[in-house]
């Protein structure tokens, strides 16, 4: 059995380790390129949301490299993601591929389901083995998130801002290759130090922008056209409201183990505008925007795939939040037609807007 799974930002790093630790042969899909997108778009329903199409592209490229088993997340609604697996399986079958699709349904307070799925994958396996696989994967997930956070915190202050991505990429490579948890931790320390040694302009006061929105588009640089890098290199300090570990926690942890303090707070501050869960990250997009304004951020960018249902609800509410709290919000929808030039123009204009606003507020 050769297992593959879709990309989402740096997710392949922890997931590959985890699966290898379980004794599986893993085929990581080739990095996402224009070709991946084209394949996905060609074979997916026209009005499906972008992540579904990207996944299909990943699968096809991995199946072509010999994968025969696809591991995919499931869901219980109401966002379309929960039904991705079914549709994708149908698409690939109609294309004539021979494969097995295993869908990991979220755990609703129940370990049994997880064991059933693991059994499907690896047969009978010692519980200690599962535990060590999880620990290793989790350590790597935390490590890549940590590096991402440092890169975003550092980039705008650097004399040479391009260096941040170089160091970050090198760090990811080291984490990918690390064999043990200790090695992961040492490598994180090394890279952290390297970041600290980069030459900075200590007096620089960057604009601060928070990223909210649908998780796939926020986490996948190919899809968001490298927004963190783009903003950072223009001297903006970027903070993401969601990280890979958040998603893994939400999808792979049994619900009774979740430490959801942050989630509660987000709900609380969103409440005057939206007091009900609407699927996906719609509620979080509203709540995180409020939090960013409380934390003194200059602006918020909302990213989501074209036709994303939960985010459209958030989009219709955010202008009011923006007016009430005096924090500019830029909503950007991404799909296969998104042109880079128009996207950059919008981002630049948004930065100008924030710059002029903050300059004026300082004068007053």
């Amino acid at each position, binding site marked *: 059995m050769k297992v593959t799974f879709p990309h989402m930002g740096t997710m392949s790093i922890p997931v590959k380790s985890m699966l290898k630790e379980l004794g599986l042969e893993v085929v990581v899909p080739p*990095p996402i390129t*224009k070709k991946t997108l084209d394949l996905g778009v060609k074979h997916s329903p026209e009005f499906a949301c972008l992540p579904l199409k990207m996944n299909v592209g990943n699968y096809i490229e991995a199946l072509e490299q010999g994968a025969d088993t696809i591991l995919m997340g499931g869901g219980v609604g109401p966002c379309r993601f929960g039904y991705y697996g079914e549709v994708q399986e149908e698409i690939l079958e109609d294309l004539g591929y021979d494969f097995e699709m295993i869908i990991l349904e979220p755990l609703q307070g129940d370990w049994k389901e997880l064991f059933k799925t693991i059994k499907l994958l690896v047969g009978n396996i010692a519980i200690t083995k599962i535990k060590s696989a999880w620990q290793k994967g989790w350590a790597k997930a935390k490590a890549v998130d940590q590096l991402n956070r440092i890169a975003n915190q550092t980039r705008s202050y650097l004399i040479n801002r391009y260096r941040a*991505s170089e160091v970050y990429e090198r760090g990811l490579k080291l984490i990918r290759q690390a064999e043990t948890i200790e090695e992961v931790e040492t490598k994180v320390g090394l890279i952290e130090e390297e970041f600290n040694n980069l030459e900075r302009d200590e007096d620089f006061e960057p604009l601060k922008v928070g990223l909210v929105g649908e998780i796939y588009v926020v986490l996948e640089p190919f899809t968001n056209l490298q927004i963190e890098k783009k903003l950072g290199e223009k001297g903006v300090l970027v903070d993401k409201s969601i990280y890979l570990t958040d998603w893994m926690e939400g999808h792979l942890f049994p619900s009774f183990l979740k430490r959801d303090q942050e989630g509660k707070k987000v709900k609380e501050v969103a409440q005057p505008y939206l007091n009900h869960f609407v699927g996906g990250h719609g509620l979080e997009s509203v709540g995180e925007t409020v939090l960013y304004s409380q934390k003194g951020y200059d602006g918020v960018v909302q990213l989501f795939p074209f036709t994303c249902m939960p985010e459209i609800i958030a989009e219709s509410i955010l202008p009011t939040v923006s007016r009430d709290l005096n924090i500019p919000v830029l909503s950007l929808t991404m799909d296969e*037609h998104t042109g880079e030039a*128009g996207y950059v123009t*919008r981002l630049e204009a948004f930065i100008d807007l924030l710059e*002029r606003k903050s300059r004026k507020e300082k004068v007053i």
Partner: protein
Amino acid sequence: MKGYMGVDVGSVSTNIAIINEEQEVIEKLYLRTEGQPIKAIKKGLMEIKDRVDCEISGVGTTGSARQLAGVIIGADTVKNEITAHAVAASTVVPGVQTVLEIGGQDSKIIVLRDGVVVDFGMNTVCAAGTGSFLDQQASRLNISIEEFGGLALQANAPVRIAGRCSVFAESDMIHKQQLGHNVEDIIAGLSEALVKNYLNNVAQGKEILGPIVFQGGVAANEGIKVAFEEELGLEVVVPEYYDVMGAIGSAVLAQEAVNEKGRTDFKGFNTTDFNYHASSFECEGCPNSCEVINIHQGDEVIARWGSKCPKWEAV
């Protein structure tokens, strides 16, 4: 006398404006880009050079070819067209709260409060809210685009033309023609359709308050201006230099930039003597197949862009 020059190189037109220290326009130029931005920039510079006798103390570029223009001219500021248009509008009409801009290929709305941009929108992939929509339909009706606006005003009963998309609008228009509606009513209908598309797509959810400035090439069209006024119930101002506002904004930004840094990087009008050309190649480093563009001055590559990774960033 000191002057500041703004150069706006878009896909349809290349505009140049020169302003004096008091930010008044002393010269302007509008020419077609015709898919050859380098040629258009050189031609524009040569033409405008003979028309003014002032020292150029700063230069700004904007528009979709702003980077290219910036490299060739030696710009002090390279700014996106949204900011440039906003700056121009608030220079020409102080206190402006809404800018409607419709150009050939794209259109935007800019919302300002107390002189600061607080929100903006741009058309997405569709051309239904842009000038090219009118161009297409005008040529289909065999009417020059200049006559278009005047004819719309002569309509008695504008016909209703459906279509978020210019392709649908076209088929609907043909249908209305077959039914025997007169040309004036159809043109007025098209103007209303453009305004509706613009308001539903580009300006959706934006707070539109007066004073409103309407600029960009399409602002020449009286019919569209009136359609906007009727739809919004507010007066709409078309500034004198409505067609080169991006360039004016860019010139104002250049003035700001030069005041800050104390010198200009302008290469001089003689820059047109150099031989510039662009070449491109498809990078084969990965399946992204980025189209990388080289800008040459003589034999030397002076700028390069288009790649997704840093591989080609250094010149």
